[in-house]
């Protein structure tokens, strides 16, 4: 397998997709899965901790025969202090041996909080970590473990956030840049999260991209959202807004090592998108992908 293989435009798997993939899998260059959806976690220390869900595993095997797979975790909870679930990482290693993920990722946040077990308390939403030196060191050590256990690139995703911690040691971009430089991980740049933050927190999205080490960005996420009580939510609600396409175009042009763009939507919005709507999102993303990949190739030839 080519370790720098550029995949193109993919889609995040959800329960509404089997019918679409059955008829339109030629529209999709790869599939990103959330591995946690395919098994039931019986809790830390249990003899058979991860029980595959038969129906879901059949779908996974079907996809793996046809398209490259990428894993997007929600269960590592890399930002939780005094907690690291090695069993989870070892199970991901088994999954990777079986499915040959091109890369895997998780969020720069904490979700799980340790209890006596077997199940951990789940915070219910991905909570951003404070961008402090203490957290940088802690996350860096975990990244080192993950990289040594699973020999594929590991990416961390920028957060969407609704509250800000005062007195942080670093800006988000400085924190991420230092993390990827010192600890051999890469970046999953979620363009829609960035867009949501630009609305809710008034951050300047293009300045964020300019400040980020874009050479380390291997994947980008795009999605739609909606308004709720005066906030713009990262709800994956159907098609991407125009501003997301514009930001994607801007970001892809600055990411020479980009390997994939993934469209995310929540399954409850499938009736709104339908096959044609999904094809349209894939087509728009491919236009941007093709435009910039040709440029990158030209620069390399020159």
């Amino acid at each position, binding site marked *: 397998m080519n370790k720098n293989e550029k995949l193109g435009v993919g889609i995040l798997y959800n329960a509404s997709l089997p019918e679409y993939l059955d008829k339109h899998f030629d529209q999709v260059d790869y599939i990103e899965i959330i591995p946690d959806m395919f098994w*039931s*976690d019986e*809790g830390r220390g249990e003899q058979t901790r991860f*029980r595959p*869900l*038969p*129906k879901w595993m*059949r779908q996974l095997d079907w996809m793996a025969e046809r398209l490259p797979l990428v894993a997007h975790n929600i269960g590592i909870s890399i930002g*939780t*202090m*005094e*907690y690291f679930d090695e069993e989870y990482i070892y199970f991901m290693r088994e999954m990777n041996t079986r499915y040959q993920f091109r890369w895997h990722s998780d969020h720069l946040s*904490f979700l799980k*909080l*340790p*209890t006596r077990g077997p*199940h*951990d*308390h*789940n*915070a*219910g*939403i991905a*909570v951003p970590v*404070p961008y402090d030196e*203490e*957290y940088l060191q802690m996350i860096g050590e975990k990244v080192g473990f993950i990289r040594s256990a699973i020999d594929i690139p590991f990416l961390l995703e920028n957060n969407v*956030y*609704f*509250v*800000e*911690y*005062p*007195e942080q040691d670093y800006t988000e971009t400085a924190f991420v840049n230092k993390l990827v430089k010192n600890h051999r991980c890469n970046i999953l740049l979620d363009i829609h999260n960035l867009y949501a933050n630009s609305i*809710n927190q008034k951050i300047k999205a293009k300045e964020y991209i300019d400040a980020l080490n874009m050479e380390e960005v291997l994947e980008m996420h795009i999605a739609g959202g909606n308004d*709720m*009580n*005066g*906030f713009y*939510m990262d709800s994956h609600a159907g098609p991407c807004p125009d501003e997301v396409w514009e930001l994607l175009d801007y970001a892809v042009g600055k990411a020479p090592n980009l390997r994939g763009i993934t469209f995310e939507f929540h399954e409850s919005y499938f009736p709104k998108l339908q096959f044609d709507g999904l094809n349209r999102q894939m087509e728009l993303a491919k236009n941007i992908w093709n435009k910039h990949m040709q440029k990158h190739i030209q620069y390399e030839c020159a």
Partner: protein
Amino acid sequence: MSARDFQLAFARLIASPETCYRAISAEQLFFANYELTEKEKKRLHSVVRQRGISACCSLYRMNRVTPVYSQLSNSCALLGDDLIPLVEEFWRHLSAPSLQFREEVLGFGQFLMDRIVKGWVCVPYLKEVLELEMAMNELSYLPEGECRILRFEHDIYGVLQALAGGTLPDDSIPESDTEYKMYIRDHAIKMDPLPVMADHSFI
């Protein structure tokens, strides 16, 4: 320990708007539950007063109710406006959730069934629909070959048909004392009626 306590305190705020109010009105009392540095206290003091904390609380509630709503959808439709007070009561019983689908869905289902059996929740057809949805959920975690025996006092297909049409079943659904065997075959859930026993009292 303090960073871990900071994360726990923040998670408690997200999980409960009432805790947010308490953290504002009696801050020292709230802080006393945790080992926090001055910087962490300052951060919690700040975030609980930011407008965005309400978005965090709403997201938490949406994420937590989604498994129940998606896996017990017909039961939720029958409950209508009674759903939210009931899930909130369930959440108070399960205050450190893992948010595993099985734990949330089957846990809430059992909690609801308990209240139905005790007569605290009285909604026509709810007991039968909930039993059906619980059995479907349980089987989805098991290998093919497992089965559940269900007994319905009404024409369950009539009930489901009304719900599928977006209406609540009225009292015209015929009574029908029928047992079914529910199982998974060829990746699909099947339900076969069982032969009627001549006289159950001899069993």
